[in-house]
């Protein structure tokens, strides 16, 4: 199963107003070797567009594990606002 199909199985209360994820310096993504955020995230939140030289962050799929903030110190990670974000049925 692809990550995309698995994410449909997860309940979310998406915060339409603000993202809890960001990049403190987008220029660093251009220089970054290997861009670990693009493959290590279990929800596939990060992807890099080579033509536009830009990292896109699909924050509403985030499962709030925090792995991205361990592998990259330019990722600004905070908890979503109270009540928003992932909601597991089993956990």
């Amino acid at each position: 199963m692809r990550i995309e199909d698995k994410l449909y199985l997860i309940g979310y209360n998406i915060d339409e107003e603000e993202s809890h994820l960001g990049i403190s310096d987008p220029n660093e993504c251009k220089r970054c070797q290997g861009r670990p955020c693009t493959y290590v995230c279990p929800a596939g939140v990060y992807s890099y567009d080579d033509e536009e030289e830009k990292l896109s962050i699909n924050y509403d799929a985030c499962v709030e594990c925090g792995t991205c903030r361990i592998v990259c110190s330019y990722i600004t990670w905070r908890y979503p606002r109270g009540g928003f974000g992932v909601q597991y049925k089993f956990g």
Partner: protein
Amino acid sequence: MRKNDFDVIIVGAGPAGLAAGYVLAKEGINVAIIERGIFPGSKNVMGGIFYRSSLDDLIPDFYKEAPLERHIIEQKVWFLSDDSMFSAGLKSERYNVEPYNCFSVFRAKFDKWFAKKVSDASAMIINETVVRELILKRGKVVGVRTDRPNGDLYCDVVISAEGVNSFLPKSLGLRKKINANNVALGVKEVIELPDKVINDRFGVSNSSEGVTIEITGPYFNEMRAMGFVYTNRNSLSVGIGAVIEDLVRLKMNPNDLLETLKSHPAIKPLVSGGETKEYMAHMIPEGGYYSMPKLYHDGFMVVGDAAMLVNSIHREGANLAIESGKLAAKTYIEARKKGDFSQRALSAYQKRLEESFVLKDLKTYKNLPKLLEEKKYLISKYPKFLIDAMYEIYNVDRVPKSEKIKLILNKAKKEIGYFSIIKDIFSVWRNLR
């Protein structure tokens, strides 16, 4: 000076925070637990095995009413290579009698139930609220700033039970940034199957008996990773936890890892025909004893995953969390009698933990994370040798057994080296003493 809103504020309604809240509420202390999910457990994940003893001490016979899946009567370790599996383990009728040793559980259900017990004991649980920072007065923690309007709350002591992604201990300088060697990423799927199918596939006689399988070996290519399959009542929990540094080094995608594990010839027949119901991920603090933060500050204590209290070798975590929550609560109760919530008074929490099985166990394995970092081959080379040796022994090809044993010993000499074997045995022994 502003009056306290609560005596104690606990940040996070997981097992550690709830245990602390329960002990305090039972003593009549005015305690609030702040939870960022819509209910306690909604954001919590673990592999799924919960050891009874620490909670039973708090809520006797809890297992008779808590939402549990199966009690575990057989625990196996599978050493996998690409095409083989060597199995070891124990099934015992002694695990099949009440009050049982451990259970498979779902945290979203279990934590919700536990939280109900805690609020029935008159602790206040405040859901859908994030603590953004601590409020300090002359260096002492006096409250928390939440993301609610006018959301400052004051108290004697704050207990950080925020889990692995904890920010409050770091803001006080109790620890540095968590590094990729000290944490694993766990990914897991809940795969639904009829209970009768599970009973047959795992060789148990009814739907309350359960089996666990821990998976290691050369299959993981020297990656510090562990797979697992746990039986729930009508589903299996199948997952894999890998040290993040290794995932990055080998450019691994965690979902790909899980998918290939599910397709391994030893795993596939177990999950076949099942329907995936949920996919989840969570970090696991696996750095052990040396990765722990300082556990107390003026008006502040750290418990559970936030304190890195996980015994990854024995997949124990929630029970250590509960134990630490209890000990932090007891420390507060003592401190309250003297009206002293200073660092010095709260350092008794550290002493209590040191005297309990929690830190005794973490100390036993304190050198293991470093050993496995330096000698990653220990988890692949020896199991591989074992699998190949067993294969030779069972494979009848008209070569006499005496010659096979000679071949196996020669292989050990050539591929690993007698001297290296002795050195490795010595270093494992020395590090586990």
